[in-house]
């Protein structure tokens, strides 16, 4: 049976090769495009979580509605510290985050002033590679300022110059002081470069007279998809007075993005396959019609209709498997050389609006490949049932008479 099906396939090269090409390209498109989209979403989520930062954040209950300095929280107490030192937590940091105004001689702009603990901040959100000039903060007392490249450009200032930061302390008095710019960073998104300026945690606490209080505690674990398994422990340790939220509740846009993407991949695969299946059905139907005479002969020789059905199904299954193999190899072959990123900076502005950066890193996921392959095999066999069933029901006499 298998041999027969195999030989049948290669009896008509051209037909089979065209069919194979269709399946291969289809499968390749499915896997490759999915990898691209996955890469985009992954990148967006990573960026998003890095900018939050952290997979879980602890705030004052009122902070999310009114991120003012008054809605701060005390530094972690014993209980919370213990929870934060557990194995599930990869890194954590505490920061002060307040709206502020930065001014140079020529311009002033609204920014978000971040008082950070440089050591742990680097582990959780800030990438040292992004420093393009100067250095990052060295300790909590560092009174240098690290600003974005775009902000420096807007303020017509640069590394080594002094700027003034102005904000409000908890009593609504203006708190201000001069800072020297010790570092310039480049973010993947230019909008972030304009928004965030960094200085030492204790420097800000002193400036704003907020003692040891902080605005937020950010925590990160191993994998952003598994947050829900460990964050309840932190929540318990933080107590009822504080609000502990995982990233998908802090940034609902990110989480709905993830959900949408998961659904989208499936829809995408099905759409590609629908286009593909018309070609498949068409070719198989034509193959059956071309071979009416031959099928009639087989029937006349004593082959049962069910065998004919199996025969044709087997043929299309073989076709599908060969096509899938070729498609998968092709897809892997195209994704791997592109693993380092595809530069799509020509459309960077549009991508930035979506929160994605201008370099696309395709991400090949085993699940997506399996899904694509299963869908193709399953639907492929399903669509070839129709021509096979028709072939099995030929009347041998009539079929033999057809020439």
């Amino acid at each position, binding site marked *: 049976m298998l041999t027969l099906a195999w030989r049948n396939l290669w009896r008509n090269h051209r037909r089979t090769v065209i069919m194979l090409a269709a399946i291969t390209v289809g499968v390749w498109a499915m896997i490759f495009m999915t990898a691209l989209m996955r890469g985009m979403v992954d990148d967006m989520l990573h960026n998003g979580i890095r900018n939050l930062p952290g997979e879980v954040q602890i705030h004052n209950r009122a902070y999310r509605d009114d991120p003012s300095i008054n809605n701060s929280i005390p530094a972690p107490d014993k209980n919370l510290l213990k929870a934060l030192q557990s194995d599930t937590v990869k890194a954590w940091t505490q920061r002060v985050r307040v709206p502020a105004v930065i*001014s140079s001689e020529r311009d002033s702009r609204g920014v978000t002033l971040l008082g950070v603990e440089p050591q742990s901040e680097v582990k959780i959100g800030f990438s040292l590679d992004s420093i393009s000039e100067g250095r990052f903060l060295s300790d909590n007392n560092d009174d240098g300022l690290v600003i974005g490249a775009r902000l420096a450009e807007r303020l017509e200032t640069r590394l080594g110059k002094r700027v003034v930061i*102005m904000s*409000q302390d908890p009593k609504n008095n*203006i708190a201000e002081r*001069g800072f020297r710019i010790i570092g310039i960073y480049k973010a993947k998104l230019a909008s972030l470069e304009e928004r965030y300026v960094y200085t030492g945690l204790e420097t800000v606490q002193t400036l704003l007279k907020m003692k040891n209080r902080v605005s937020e505690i950010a925590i990160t674990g191993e994998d952003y998809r598994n947050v829900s398994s460990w964050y309840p422990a932190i929540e318990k340790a933080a107590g009822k007075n504080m609000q502990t939220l995982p990233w998908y509740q802090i940034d609902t846009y990110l989480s709905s993005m993830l959900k949408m993407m998961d659904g989208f991949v499936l829809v995408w695969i099905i759409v590609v396959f629908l286009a593909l299946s018309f070609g498949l059905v068409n070719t198989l139907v034509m193959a059956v019609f071309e071979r009416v005479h031959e099928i009639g002969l087989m029937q006349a020789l004593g082959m049962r209709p069910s065998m004919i059905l199996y025969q044709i199904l087997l043929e299309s299954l073989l076709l599908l498997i060969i096509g899938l193999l070729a498609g998968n190899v092709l897809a892997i072959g195209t994704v791997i050389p592109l693993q380092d990123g595809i530069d799509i900076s020509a459309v960077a502005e549009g991508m930035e609006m979506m929160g994605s950066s201008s370099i696309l890193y395709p991400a090949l996921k085993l699940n997506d490949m399996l899904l694509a392959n299963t869908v193709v095999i399953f639907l492929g066999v399903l669509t070839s049932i129709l021509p096979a069933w028709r072939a099995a029901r030929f009347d041998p006499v009539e079929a033999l008479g057809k020439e």
Partner: protein
Amino acid sequence: MQRFIAVLTVCLVSPLALATTPEPRDLIIQAMNHWRGTTSYSEITMTIHRPDWQRSMSMVCWTRGDKTTLVRITEPKKDAGNGTLTKDNNMWTFSPKINRIIKVPSSMMNQSWMGSDFSNKDISKSTDIVDQYDHTLLETRQQDGHMVYLIQSVPHEDAAIVWGKEILVIRDDYVLLEQQFWDQDGILVKTMKAREIKMMGGRTVASIVRMSKQETAEEWTEMSVQKIQFNINIDDSLFTLSNLRNPRQ
């Protein structure tokens, strides 16, 4: 307002004190002490000039010491009643059109005051120049029969001042002739200059002062003093939010 008032009110103390070369810091402190702690009432016209338009507004101001001022617009009618109160580095504005007092938030302190070339910060801060800078006497020269001192003031590292340095030109009778604002690259950004000096209210004051940006010479703001009185009695209730809203004077 104070910086501006400072210019207006810096005046003669005692020529004897200047017999020897003075310490630059003392020079500034003495000049400022002269008007600090006293009160003043003045009527001023402010002219804002731009290449394609120009407008003037008249205002009255009361000051006490260097931390407290009240300014109220009297002309043109459209703006009459607008007021600004500053007290200890805090600033409030009142606009009769919306009948509301607004505390000027820190984010707006660098914006221009009533559309002029003075920023809110210029208006609400003044004597910072004594404590937040290091002063050096650059030059002493004779000019129009007066000794004139050129003082360079460089802000401290953590001072909330964006300038690289300021240069003050003070006459021996404590009239501030000129104040230059330099950026950190040593480029002159803006200059406040006394254009007319005369006796008013019993003192020598700079009666016309012009603030102009170096890059756009056609844009300037000029303050000209119509009338000024010193050391008058001012009731405490003048410098209150309720008086800002409902003028009793």
